[in-house]
């Protein structure tokens, strides 16, 4: 096994635990359709940049599925996880420097890229993930405005936790 993946394994376990034990309970306590915090996509965002795309997609699917089972929504988070894993390289290319990153930056974290780039990239990344998630959750674009409202509200809440996480751990690899 590639040793660069070991921190990711810990992140996988930690983020799934936080998502399903803490954030799920918070959502149940607040009980509003607009209160959603999805932190587990950080696992996908912090996957090594050099990881091949098919592997990343499969890992995105895996973390989504791990969240889906406690949530009782098989396939919904998994679909969004796989999609965001596919979208991640595109997001990084959009917000990153011209010509791409050098091989020195191992993961897309504030430690390697600037805080500004990280915030831009993670906002776009989470927006895509949340939009896909709420679309699959609604399963129809009839309520498109509702999907957009939920996405924006969840993005605002989620970004608070993302910034907290990045400031606390600021992972190097």
């Amino acid at each position, binding site marked *: 096994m590639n040793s660069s993946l070991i921190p990711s394994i810990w992140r996988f376990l930690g983020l799934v635990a936080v998502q399903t034990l803490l954030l799920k309970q918070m959502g149940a306590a607040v009980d509003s359709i607009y209160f959603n915090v999805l932190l587990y996509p950080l696992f996908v965002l912090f996957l090594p940049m050099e990881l091949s795309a098919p592997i990343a997609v499969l890992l995105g699917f895996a973390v989504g599925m791990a969240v889906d089972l406690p949530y009782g929504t098989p*396939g919904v988070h998994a679909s969004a996880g*796989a999609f965001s894993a*596919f979208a991640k390289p595109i997001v990084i290319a959009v917000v990153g420097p011209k010509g791409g990153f050098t091989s020195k930056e191992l993961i897309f974290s504030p430690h390697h890229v600037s805080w500004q780039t990280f915030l831009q990239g993670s906002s776009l990344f989470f927006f895509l993930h949340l939009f896909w998630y709420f679309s699959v959750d609604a*399963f129809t674009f009839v309520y498109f405005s509702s999907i957009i409202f939920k996405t924006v509200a969840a993005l605002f809440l989620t970004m608070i936790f993302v910034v907290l996480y990045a400031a606390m751990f600021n992972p190097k690899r």
Partner: protein
Amino acid sequence: MIRLLQLLLKNGGFVTLVFVELFCFVIIVQYNTKQADIWANTADIYGGRVLEKRQNVVDYFSLADRVDSLNRALDSVQARLANVRQMQVSIRDTAFLFSYDTIIGTDSVRRKTIRPEYEFVTARVISNSISSANNWLIINRGSDDLVGPHMAVVSPNGIVGITRHIGKHFSIAMSVLHRQTRISASLKKQNTFGSLVWEGGDPEVMTLKDISKHFEDKIKPGDPVVTSGYSVMFPKDISVGTVMGKATPDPENPHFLVVKVKLSQEMSDIHEVAVVRNLYSEEIDSLKQMIKQ
């Protein structure tokens, strides 16, 4: 399996994503009640549209069958119409006039006494000629369809011919444009009758012979000519055509008149016809034998 994995790794994330999302889709509609309901509804709506489209295609390709069944329906309607005419004649004696349906529906005794006289078999003309001295038609009905020799062939516009040679599935009919044609026809306004023959030449014109001399001044161009009903083959009042010009004395037999008749059925344009089957032709023929002896 290994090759499939290699393909996935080589062609990058997109192929993987498509497979994973398809897999997710299956799981979602399988295990999530809300999404499964929405999917079932959507599938119903689109499935219904697809089924409708499919039905349209199927309908198009079954048009031939439907035309056939419509023709059969037309047969029964024509038979009914001819029989109504027939019945009006027979009931006139008793000073009552019933519609066919009333009789059929209510009066079993009368139904037994007033039986239908004709049946119609629709047919398609598959060969036709008009330019010879004796012309023939071939139709796509034969003995299997209860077509026999010496049955009238008519079209919606008028008389067409008489069957002569019968095969299993096809028959040859003598066109009215034939030297041997001799059909009893009447002038409807004058209420008199004669024999309709074809003297060759113009395929749109026939000659009505043997008309009584005293009608000479009463016959005018445009007067309708119909079948007289004095024949086993042709039912009464089937259109033949209209009078052309004035009646003139017959050069061969000066006691009678002849008149030219323009046919109402253009003989060069015949496609759908019906063969008229007289249900009592055998009985009438055997009666005729008696007066010959």
